Every structure is written in C-alpha cells, then in structure tokens.
C-alpha cells in the first residue's frame, strides 16, 4: 500500500506538469493562428487611416480617406441599397421557409418527402448554372435594375436552406403540443401563428443573420441584376471601384472596411445564434 502511494504521487504530479505544458503549447499555437487570421487586416486598417501621400511615404496618419469615402463616393447610398435588398429578401425567405417548414415538419402529406428532398437537393445547384436563365426571366418581366428583381433572386437562392433549417427545427417540437392545441379548437393557421412561430424564433433569428450576411456579401446577383449606380449594392460598388491594383489604396481600404462593418457587427452581437445555426443543419 505504502509503496503504491509513493509511486502514485510523483507520477500524478508529473502528469499535471505535462498537462499544463500541453496547455501552454496549445495556447502558443492558437496565438500564432490568431496572428495569421487577423494580421491581414492590419495593413488594411493602417492604410485606410492615411491619405494617399502619407500612404506612399509611410509617415503620418489622417482621416482624409474616410472623409473622402463618405463625401465623394456613393457609399452611403449603396449601404442603403444593400439594406433594402437584404431586408426584402429576408422577409420573403422567412415567410416562405417558416410556412414550408411547418408543413414539412408537422403536417406531412403523402408525397411531401419527395418535395423536401427536391428542395434540399436544389441547394447544390451552382448559382452560375441557373443565373443565365434567371437573368433572361427577370429581364423579360422588366425587373432588371429594380429592387424587387434582385430581392426575388436572393429569396429564391436563400429559401432552400432556410426551409431545411425550419423543417428540422419544427420537427423537434413535440407533437403533443399540437394535438393539445387541436383539441382546444385551434385551427392549423392559428397553431402556426400562436405556437410554431414563437417556438421557432431561435431558428428564425439564425436564418435572418445568415441571410443578412449572405445577401450583404454577395457580388454576382447584385452585379447582374442591379447594374444602375442608383440601385447598386455596396459589395458591387466596392468590387467595381475601378481596377483594384491602380486606384487610391487608402480610399479603397476605407471603403472596404466600411462595407464589411455591418456583417462584422451582426456577427459580434449574434455570434451564438450564428454558430448554433451552422451546426443546427448538421443535427447531432
């Protein structure tokens, strides 16, 4: 017994030392990774805080580039356009996907599984494979360079995943709850508005955040469907600020940072929902 104790103590101490040494190593590795992930933003921020002359000489800082972006570039207007398009698309997506998710999850009919698989499978269709017919269609109904045209396209692109997410979420709500509501005399429509929507709020918030970031950051749809500078979204505005390589770099960096700010703020505020949403689609 005594012998056992004597050998056990040093080995556990050794193990603990090993463990903390491992933690230190982990911490250092994570620090190195963090530098790699965040470092590229440093030249960006520092360049945006210089005028062109200061950027070239590398001496001094000023807010000239930021002021130029806000006063001489159409960025405020473009930020507005992005907001309008994103909100419109989000509204359509939520309306569609919550109702579809309710139907697929709680009111399945005979062939609903086929429709569900078709919708999930449509997520895998490359955007560029369908954007050409989509472009032809939207231009035929005269919605090129109009908010509703782009909103429709974004809603169509975002709805499949949202429907998938809402279906999985609603499926997890116990059937007894609905049965009790039916016995109490609630119609299926009332059940949707009074029970399913409030209970589905976490999933809805996740969809809102994911879609906001997706629509805000999209280039292709905006580039094709909102070509007119008056309706152009901010991501398209940044991408088309003449050739990236020759333009006034500090101005370009300030504009890029400004355009990235809303998604970053949304991410920092709703981080938990966003990360939950990414794993929610996976189930457990």
């Amino acid at each position, binding site marked *: 017994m005594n012998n056992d104790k004597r050998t056990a103590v040093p080995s556990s101490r050794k193990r603990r030392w090993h463990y903390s040494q491992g933690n230190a190593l982990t911490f250092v590795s994570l620090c190195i990774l*963090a530098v790699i992930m965040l470092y*590229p933003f440093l030249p960006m921020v520092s360049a945006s805080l210089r005028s062109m002359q200061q950027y070239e000489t590398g001496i001094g800082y000023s807010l000239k580039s930021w002021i130029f972006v806000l006063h001489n570039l159409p960025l405020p207007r473009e930020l507005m356009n992005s907001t309008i398009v994103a909100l419109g698309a989000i509204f359509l997506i939520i309306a569609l996907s919550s109702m579809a998710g309710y139907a697929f999850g709680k009111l399945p009919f005979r062939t609903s599984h086929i429709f569900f698989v078709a919708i999930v499978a449509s997520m895998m269709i490359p955007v*560029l494979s369908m954007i050409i017919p989509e472009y032809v269609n939207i231009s035929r109904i005269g919605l090129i360079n109009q908010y509703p045209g782009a909103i429709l396209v974004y809603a169509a692109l975002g709805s499949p995943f949202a429907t998938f997410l809402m279906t999985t979420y609603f499926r997890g709500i116990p059937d007894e709850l609905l049965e009790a509501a039916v016995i109490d005399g609630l119609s299926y429509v009332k059940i949707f508005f009074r029970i399913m929507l409030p209970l589905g709020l976490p999933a809805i918030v996740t969809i809102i955040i994911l879609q906001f970031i997706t629509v805000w950051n999209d280039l292709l749809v905006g580039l094709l469907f909102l070509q007119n500078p008056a309706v152009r979204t901010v991501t398209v505005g940044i991408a088309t600020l003449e050739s990236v390589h020759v333009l006034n770099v500090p101005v370009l960096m300030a504009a890029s940072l400004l355009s990235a700010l809303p998604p970053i703020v949304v991410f920092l505020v709703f981080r938990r929902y966003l990360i939950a949403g990414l794993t929610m689609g996976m189930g457990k």
Partner: protein
Amino acid sequence: MGLSNYTSLFSDPIFWRILANNGILLLSIPIAIMIPLGAAFLLQRHVTGWKFFQSAFYLPTVISWVVIGMVAVQVFAGHGVLNRFLSLFGLHQNMLAHPVPALIVIIIAFIWSLFGSNMVIFIGGMATMAPELYEAARIDGANELKTFWHITVPLLRRFIQFNFILTLITAFTGLFSLIFVMTGGGPGFGTTTLEFFIYQQAFDSGAFGEAATLGVVLFVLMFAVTLFQVPLLLREDD
C-alpha cells in the same frame, strides 16, 4: 442546336485548361480541412482565451469575398506586405502576374476565409463526443497526438465527409467574387475556373449559348457530388 454545343466544347483546349484549374482547387481541399480540424482540436481543450480565439478565427468568414480579395491583393500583389518582406532577400515578385503563383494566392485566400466555418462544424462535431473517451485515453497513457489520430479523427468521420463536400461545393461554385476582384481570371486563363468561365462567356463575350452549355456541365459535376450529399444530410431523418 442539339449536341453540337457539347462536342465543340469538349474539343476546345481552353475548356480543358480551365478544368485543370478546377482540379488544382480540388487538391487544395484536404489542406482546407486539416488546418481547421487541428484548430478545433486545440480549441476544445478550452485553454485561457479560447472564446476569443474562436471568434478571431471565425471573423474572416463573415466578411465578403470581395473584401477578402482586396485584403489578399494588399498582402500578395506588387506593393504588398509579403513583397516588402521578400524584397529584403531580393525575391520581390508580383505573385498575381503569373498563372501558377496567382492560383496559389487565390487558394490561400480561399482556405483562409473558409477556415472559420469548417472549424465551427468540427467544434460542433466534437461537442457530440463523450468526454469519457478522452479521459479513458489519458488514463491509458495516450499522448495528445495519439488521441487526435485514434479517437478524434475516426469519430469525426461524418463531419470530415460533410466538410469535404461543403468545401468542394464552395471551391467550384462560390469563388466567383474572389476571382473577380483578385485576378479577373487572369493572367491568361491562369485563374479561370469553370464557374468564372461561365460568367465570362455570358456577360463579357455575350455567348449565352456556350455559357448555358458550360452551366450544364458544372451542374452535372455538382450533381454527382449531391448524390453523396443528400443521404448524408438526411441520414438521421429515417
């Protein structure tokens, strides 16, 4: 009309040149998965500040490809940060001016910005694993590396598979904006992927027919991937 669109496409050397670029993207996917997997493993040890690290790693994911492209150009192009460093050794070079380095730069930007979302999926996967497994491994005297290879990786197989497909889909159908901002597909066809070629054909050359044909080819490629993807997504439903 008919199949002539396809026969002329498949005999076009440019088409194969572009498909080769897609092939190189495919080769980069294991790297795009291994690094986040390692990071997720480190994060779930919950050392001091792990929440900060998690957010920091995820940050590039919420930023648009357009801005990421801008950042990458600042780092890698002519007057970029990397070149200022390299010119200390007399190695100054504009990496975006040559086909192979340009494609590598695009792949680096791609891996960098996808790092966060791949990592989060792995963290989600690790959260489903019983902590007793690690405890048992530690008692058995397995070191961290062994635990990683013999416990974490096999148990996360489904998540690795899922991430592989997701990364592949992004690489083949989601890189348009990055290429648009960084190289515009050039130099030559050095960084033109199938996806970007569709856009060029349709909206630069006005060849909508050829573009639609290419769109079908890309769709068929992705459909093959989908055949693996759907059962994976629906597995738990039945």
